Structures are given as structure tokens and as C-alpha cells.
């Protein structure tokens, strides 16, 4: 068979610039074969090589006393004591989900699950961060239904609970939705497996589903914008088979209980190519693979197709020589394809053969070392100053503050997301101690007293207005959420969703966000152990707000000390921790956007030293049983945090009567809805009040007593009063009614 001749034009069609192609020629010393061109194009795509982002990702702190594995492997690993560790990562599947929401979201979940269990950890929980366009955009309802069904369809079938997440809407996502999927697993230290090809002569074994033509160039699709031709890209969306993945999961975990293998990696983006080359690169070895031995679902597949296919539910294993039969037996028990397709070589070359011929021969170190690395120009947008200008005094005062309050609570951002999470099995495996609906989900670790707290957050408006501060806030909010549940933040994974990095303004946003995140991580002592970058989230030249989603993982040494975000007992006192951080801050606020139709100003100021003390205070307060609930102020400000504490619990709504925490001179709407950082709403039994205040003094946290839980109203003295039951009703029904979904 004669392959298409490789030319610079063909290289460009593959997404390689003239310069990159020049490097390829330099490495090989000749024109690449078509298969080799395919390999270079996917390995050097943005999605796989991180060429535009690597230089900035280095700024993240990735080490720490608990870090067993930082970025660079399939997932990050953090020690939790007692010989156990958590394995986690977040990944994006944005472009495929826009084109085919069910399968795009489903395969996103499948991919991240594999990234975790390939390290030897049984996945015990998933979360997701979803962004859609305007609620009234014609496509939004269809996308929401499809994505949620897809996540449910895959996650429920494979038996991993989906315990939390965030769903947010904004015009900037009209043409580019975001689907970021996170999974965490637990593993014993001595049972961790890495994706390394080591031991010359060791067999390379393919397991899982047969290979078809799915998703060829999926990696390059993620590395380009949408335009009018995007519909044509439909065939590149993969179809997931969660039952197969369940079998694969059980088979892999069974195999990992033996010592028959050396390394293992899942075949994700760029399938067989990325898994083989990355494993060999980590091991400093090479390999020889015979594509004729790859189990195939279609007839007449070319080597190019076999190397680039993104068929799902496949893994690549390097086993110990002589142990092939053990591997085979396990995978045959679980009815999965298993085939020895090659062996590890010692010369650092990746060799691929097909029909008796060598179709690719690439020096692995060069493929990795000479991968493009860009320091793209970053320029602050000219309009940024104007964007940050905001004169709150000029905003009209709402005539009915109570009505405005109801409007915010029943809107798509703050309304109860039960419509979404009721479709996710969030209880399976009987580990979920705090179900979806609180600031953080908490899971138990059976066999220990420990708990794991999880949350995923990002305020993209803040990042749009000031990406550096927005990045800091993203990390702080995640840390605060897990601290509110009583946990100590021990690591994070991120999904950095941005527009086109070839635009200097986007690059400025990216660099700034990372620098902000890094600063917060350093001060708070939280390492970034894994993550993902998704660029090119733009349509027709219009990009999304910078959206660096942060998935925060926290540890409770004693899960029984966990706290929820809602009030539970009439008579409990309501206090504000961090009261000195209150101020009039409307920049980027939900109130400004929903009621006044503006996104402007600057995000609220943040004091990292204060945040650090606050985290420690919250954890000790929970540990010492001093608080009944903790909920940090976020979107919607003080009034919405108060309302949420009243209505978001599982029983009927609680009431509350509090004083206005702001000076009387402050405009009522500003007092209600200003968004502040580092402020937490607490409730405590009256008997614990003194001890709680003492503890706050020890941590230099300014406390303010506001009032008491109880009554039929949620009442902010002098400002507004709404019936608690009414508030709960509008909050419960708001999501479905705003989106026109069936309740």
C-alpha cells in the first residue's frame, strides 16, 4: 500500500507549523512517513505537549511533605497517612461535549476514571465543573440535558459516585461549553503503579476494547477553534462504553494485586501513540510494536489510523517477561481483548511495524526534548482599565430588596442544583457522608476514621476582570470550601480553560491566572499535583472568560468532625468570621450582572495571610465541636450566604434573624449583595459561643455576632425580610424553571 506523500502542506493540515515541521525533519534526517507525521502532530499538539503552557505551569508549587507524585504522570498522588494515599486529577472534554453533549461528557468521565485507576487506585468519587451559555440561548437546554445525562450514564454504570460539582451559565460560553471532570481514588502506598516502560525485552501488552476509527485527531480538535466547519468534525467524537470500562477497571485492579507488571497507562488522547511514547520516555527506553497484533474492530485499518485512533476503554501494559499468561488469564476472565503487541527496547527508539515493514522509527528523547515550547507574547488588553472602571453610586437602587434577593436565589447560579445531582448516583459505595448540596462533599475512608473533602470552584467573572486576583481567589475559595467542612486542604488539581493562546491578550490572562494561583498555593501551602490545560475555547474569534477551575482535596483526620453549610437548630447563634474583611465590593458580582446587566469593576480584595489563618481556624473549630455549620460568603454576598444557610439543608427551611453587618450608611443593596473574600457565616450552639470566640482570638480572626437561628422568616434587620418557606420553594424550583426543564 502506498501512503500519501508527506509535504509541508500536509504537515500544516496536521497542525504543525513550518518551524515545527522543520524540527521534525531535523530529528529524523529525512521526510517522515505518514504514520510518523501523525505521531508528531498529535504528540506536539497543544493538548498533548502543552507547548503554549508548559513554561507557565512551571510556576505552580508542586512539591510538599505529602506529595508522592506531582504533575507528569497520569494523576497526582498525595499521602493521607496510615499508609494510604489519594490519587486524583481533573480533565477537560470541552470541544467534544459541545458537538455531541452526551458522548462528549460520558467519554470525558471515562477518560479521567482511567487516569486514576491506571495508577492502581480504585476510584471512589467524581466531581465536575460545567459551564454553559445563557440560560435562554436556544442550545443551552439541549446541552445541559445531554451533558448531565452523559455524566450520569457513564458514572452510574461504572459504579463511582458523582458527589459534587458546579454548574454555571454565561454568555461567553454560548459557543464553547466547558465540561471538566474530576475523579479521586484511594490506594495503598505500596500498591501504586506508574506509567513507565522499563526492562528491555519486557512484553508490551494491549488490553481492553478493539481499536476502531473513533476520534482520529481528537487531540488536534481540542487544539483548534470552532468555526463554520465544526459540524463536519462530528465523526471525531468517540462513543463510550461504561460497561467495558467497568470490566477493564476490575481486571486492572485484579492484575495490580499481583506483581506481574512493570508499568501501565491508559490510552487517552492520541491513543496508542501517546501511551507508548510517554511510557518509553519516562523509562528512558524504546519499544518495538507490531500493529498487526492490535485487536481491530474495522477492516483495512492503516498504521496511521491504528496509532492515532482514540477508541475508548483501552490500556497499555508493560509486564515482566514470562508473566504474559497471567495477564492474559485475568483479561480473558473479564471478557476483554488482550494481545502482546511488542516489547521494550533499549536503544531509545520507538519502532512501529505493520505488514512486515517499519512504518515509524522515532528517537523518543528527541520527540520529548525537542517538542515545541513556546513563550507566547502576553499583552494586557487595552480595554482592561475601562473594564475595571465601575461607579457603584451610579447604579439604580432596586425598589424591592426582598424581590431582588429572591431573584438572585432562584436564578441559575444560586438555585438548588438538585435537578442535576439527582441524576447522578451519589451514594454508591456507601462512602458519601456529606451528599451534594453543601460547600464540599465528604467521603469516608473505610478502615480508618478519616474523611476526604472535595469541592470544585471557579468564579470566571473575577478572572475576566483581573486574572491574577481571580486566580488567587479560585484557590482560596476551594480551600475555604473544604475548610468549612472541617478539612485541611492537602492538594489541588486544575483545569485551565482559556481562549486562543496565539492571542497576546489570552496569553496575558493565562499567565496572570497561573501566577495568582501559584501565589495563593505557596502562601496556603497547597501543592498542585495534577491538572489539564484546555486552550482554543473560542468560536468565531470570540473567547470564553478565563476559567481556571480548581478541584480542591481536603483531609479530615476524624470524619465525624465534618460540618455542613446549613443551620440545623433553632436557637443556634449566627456569627460572621472575618468580619473585618467586609466591604463594599461590587466588581464582578452576581448582583451587578443579574440585576444591572454589567460585568465590570475589580474582584474583591484578598488577603492571603488572613485566608491562611481562617483555614486553620475553621478546621480547629470543627475539630473542637464548636460550630454547627460553616458557609463562606461567595456569589450573592452576605444575604445569599445567609439564605443558603437557611434553605439548603435536607429538612424544611430554617429561619434566621440577624442584624445588618454593614454600617447603616451603606446602601442597602450594597450591604446585602457585596461579594467579599475571607468571610464565613457560622452557626453555633449558645453554650459553645465563648470557646468559639476564644479560638477566633487565638487565630486573630475578627468575629461579629449577628443573630439567631429560628422563626419563619429570613430577616436582615433594617434591610429585608422574606418567608423562609417561600425562599426555599423559589430556590428549589429556580434551576428547572430558569432553564425551562421539566422539574
Amino acid at each position, binding site marked *: 500500500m502506498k501512503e500519501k506523500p508527506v509535504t509541508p502542506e500536509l504537515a500544516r493540515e496536521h497542525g504543525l507549523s513550518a518551524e515545527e515541521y522543520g524540527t521534525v525533519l531535523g530529528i529524523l534526517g529525512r521526510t517522515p512517513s505518514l504514520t510518523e507525521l501523525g505521531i508528531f502532530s498529535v504528540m506536539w499538539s497543544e493538548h498533548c505537549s502543552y507547548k503554549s503552557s508548559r513554561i507557565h505551569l512551571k510556576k505552580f508549587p508542586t512539591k510538599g511533605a505529602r506529595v508522592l507524585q506531582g504533575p507528569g504522570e497520569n494523576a497526582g498522588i498525595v499521602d493521607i497517612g496510615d499508609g494510604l494515599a489519594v490519587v486524583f486529577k481533573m480533565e477537560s472534554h470541552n470541544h467534544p461535549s459541545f458537538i455531541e453533549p452526551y458522548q462528549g461528557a460520558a467519554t470525558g468521565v471515562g477518560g479521567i476514571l482511567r487516569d486514576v485507576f491506571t495508577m492502581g487506585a480504585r476510584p471512589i468519587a467524581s466531581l465536575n465543573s460545567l459551564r454553559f451559555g445563557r440560560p435562554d440561548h436556544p442550545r443551552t437546554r439541549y446541552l445541559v440535558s445531554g451533558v448531565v445525562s452523559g455524566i450520569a*450514564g457513564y458514572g452510574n454504570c*461504572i*459504579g463511582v459516585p458523582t458527589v459534587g460539582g458546579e454548574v454555571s451559565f454565561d454568555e461567553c460560553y454560548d459557543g464553547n461549553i466547558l465540561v471538566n471532570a474530576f475523579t479521586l481514588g484511594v490506594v495503598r502506598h505500596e500498591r501504586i503503579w506508574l506509567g513507565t516502560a522499563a526492562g528491555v525485552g519486557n512484553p508490551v501488552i494491549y488490553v481492553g476494547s478493539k481499536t476502531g476509527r473513533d476520534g482520529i485527531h481528537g487531540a488536534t480538535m481540542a487544539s483548534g477553534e470552532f468555526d463554520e466547519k465544526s459540524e463536519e468534525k462530528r465523526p471525531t467524537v468517540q462513543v463510550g*462504553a461504561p460497561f*467495558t470500562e*467497568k470490566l477493564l477497571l476490575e481486571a486492572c485492579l485484579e492484575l495490580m494485586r499481583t506483581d506481574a507488571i512493570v508499568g501501565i497507562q491508559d490510552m487517552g488522547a492520541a491513543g496508542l501513540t501517546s501511551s507508548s511514547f510517554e511510557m518509553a520516555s519516562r523509562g528512558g527506553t524504546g519499544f518495538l510494536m507490531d500493529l498487526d497484533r492490535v485487536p481491530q474492530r474495522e477492516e483495512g485499518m492503516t498504521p496511521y489510523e491504528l496509532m492515532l485512533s482514540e477508541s475508548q476503554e483501552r490500556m497499555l501494559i508493560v509486564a515482566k517477561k514470562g508473566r504474559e499468561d497471567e495477564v492474559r488469564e485475568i483479561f480473558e476472565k473479564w471478557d476483554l481483548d488482550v494481545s502482546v503487541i511488542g516489547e521494550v527496547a533499549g536503544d531509545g527508539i520507538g519502532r512501529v511495524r505493520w505488514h512486515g515493514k517499519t512504518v515509524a522509527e522515532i528517537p523518543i528523547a528527541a520527540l520529548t526534548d525537542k517538542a515545541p515550547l513556546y513563550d507566547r507574547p502576553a499583552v494586557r488588553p487595552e480595554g482592561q482599565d475601562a473594564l475595571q472602571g465601575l461607579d457603584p453610586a451610579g447604579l439604580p437602587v432596586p425598589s424591592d430588596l426582598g424581590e431582588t434577593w429572591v431573584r438572585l436565589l432562584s436564578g441559575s447560579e444560586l438555585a438548588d442544583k438538585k435537578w442535576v445531582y439527582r441524576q447522578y*448516583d451519589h451514594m454508591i459505595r*456507601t462512602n458519601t*457522608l456529606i451528599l451534594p448540596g453543601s460547600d464540599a462533599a465528604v467521603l*469516608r475512608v473505610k478502615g480508618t476514621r478519616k474523611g476526604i473533602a472535595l469541592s470544585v470552584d471557579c468564579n470566571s467573572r473575577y478572572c475576566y476582570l483581573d486574572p491574577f486576583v481571580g486566580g488567587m481567589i479560585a484557590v482560596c475559595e476551594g480551600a475555604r470550601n473544604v475548610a468549612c467542612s472541617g478539612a485541611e486542604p492537602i492538594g489541588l488539581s486544575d483545569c485551565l480553560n482559556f481562549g486562543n493562546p496565539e492571542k497576546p491578550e489570552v496569553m496575558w490572562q493565562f499567565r496572570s491566572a497561573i501566577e495568582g494561583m501559584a501565589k495563593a498555593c505557596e502562601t496556603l501551602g497547597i501543592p498542585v499535583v495534577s491538572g489539564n490545560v484546555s486552550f482554543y475555547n473560542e468560536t468565531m474569534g470570540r473567547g470564553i472568560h478565563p476559567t481556571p477551575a480548581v478541584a480542591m482535596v481536603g483531609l479530615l483526620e476524624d470524619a465525624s468532625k465534618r460540618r455542613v453549610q446549613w443551620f440545623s437548630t433553632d436557637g443556634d447563634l449566627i456569627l460572621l468570621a472575618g468580619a473585618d474583611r467586609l466591604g463594599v465590593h461590587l466588581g464582578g458580582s452576581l448582583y451587578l450582572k443579574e440585576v444591572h446587566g454589567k460585568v465590570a469593576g475589580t474582584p474583591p480584595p484578598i488577603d492571603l495571610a488572613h485566608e491562611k489563618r481562617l483555614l486553620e481556624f475553621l478546621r480547629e473549630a470543627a475539630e473542637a465541636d464548636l460550630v454547627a455549620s460553616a458557609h463562606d460568603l461567595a456569589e450573592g454576598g452576605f444575604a445569599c450566604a445567609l439564605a443558603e444557610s437557611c434553605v439548603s439543608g435536607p429538612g424544611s427551611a430554617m429561619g434566621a434573624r440577624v442584624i445588618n453587618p454593614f454600617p447603616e450608611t451603606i446602601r442597602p443593596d450594597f450591604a446585602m449583595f457585596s461579594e467579599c473574600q475571607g468571610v464565613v457565616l457560622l452557626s453555633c450552639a449558645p453554650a459553645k459561643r465563648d470557646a468559639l470566640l476564644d479560638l477566633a482570638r487565638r487565630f486573630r480572626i475578627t468575629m461579629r455576632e449577628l443573630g439567631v437561628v429560628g422563626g419563619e422568616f429570613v430577616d436582615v434587620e433594617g434591610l429585608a425580610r422574606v418567608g423562609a418557606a417561600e425562599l426555599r420553594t423559589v430556590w428549589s424550583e429556580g434551576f428547572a424553571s430558569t432553564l425551562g426543564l421539566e422539574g
Partner: protein
Amino acid sequence: MKTAVLVFPGSNCDHDAYHALKHVVGVEAEFVWHKQATLDGFDAVVIPGGFTYGDYLRSGAMAKLSPVMGAVRRFAEGGGPVIGICNGFQILLEADLLPGAMIVNDSLRFVCDYVHLRACTDRTPFTRGIPDGSVLRIPVAHYQGNYYADESTLSSLEERGQVVFRYCDPEGEVTKESNPNGSARNIAGICNEAGNVLGMMPHPERCAEEAMGSADGRRLFDAMVAWLGEKRG
């Protein structure tokens, strides 16, 4: 006293059932792979939930063909207690060990939530000592939990005391609003004529401890242990 927890390709809730039995209730439990054709030595059988065979063709349709189901049939004919939970219930229906069938939830969406159940008969090993009218708080998690049987089968089930649980409100009233999936007559669980085989869509193994938010599920397993204890006499 030993309980078999069956494991098929795609079973998910096997670990949860095992944990509830062994670590919460304190009963010996063992996983039994679907290819095993005998259940000798076991005193009770649990068919747990999950997505056996990916729910391909129909939920439980392919699992019913596994060798272990022959052993389950013989075990049931011998009067031993068998409980099928969620997908386990679907498997019992497909295997004709219980009458009727499951169709998709009327909302066309998967539903995972706590519901209330009204106990309707105490003659099964799992409801022994749970009087009629008792209200239990137990979660469901399913996409195809809408129980269907034709009118004459439904009447027969009622007459012969084979309806074991119905969806109800917190006060025990059987209402339309309390039905999460559209099941005929709010039926959440039924038993065979002899009363030893129970199939139910809600998951008692998920609420056997207070930490999980409800310990009502434990009552079914405690009842089973008491029933077996009495049988041995």
C-alpha cells in the same frame, strides 16, 4: 450463618452489600462469582445492584442466563431467603422468580434520592418483625425502576400478600407524589407466593448505619438473621 453476595460482570453494589452484612450487621458473607453453579453451604442469597452486562438488551436480561441463577432457583425452591436489590430485583423478574417486569422511569431520568417506604407484610424473612404500616427511609438509584404487571397479576399480588413495600410519604400515605418512578400501585418491592424471595428497587444496604443518613435498611438484614436463627431453632 453465611450469606452469598452474587457478583456478575457489571455488579456495583456487591461491595456495599458485603460491607453492610459483614461489618455492620456482623454476619459471615462471601462473594460468589456468577459462573459458580452451586450455593451449597449458604443460608441466604443477596443479588446486589449495579449494571450487570451494562443493562444491555434489558436490565437483568443477560444475567439471568448465568450458571449461578440455576443454583438460586434451587435455593429458592428449597425455601431459602433470597433478596434481589435494584438490578438484583430486575434479574429475579427476568428469571421468572418473581412476576412482572421493569420499564423506564416515567421521568425518563435516573433518580438517586431518599424515599419513604411503607412495609406491607411481615411474612418475608427480611420483613419479619417489621409490622404493616411501618415507614422506612431508604434511598433509590435507578433509571428503570417503574414496576409493571398486568391488572390480573397486580390483583393477585395484592390478594396473596405479595406486595412487600410501597412508596409513601413520610407519614406512610401512599401518594402519587411519593412515587419516584411511576411504578404500578406505588410498588417498590414484592415477594413470591411462598414469601422467601424478595425483590425491591430501593437499597437497604446503603442505609444500614447512621453515618449514611438512615439506618432503616439494617432492619431488613437484622430480620433475616433473626428469621434464620429461628429456623435453625
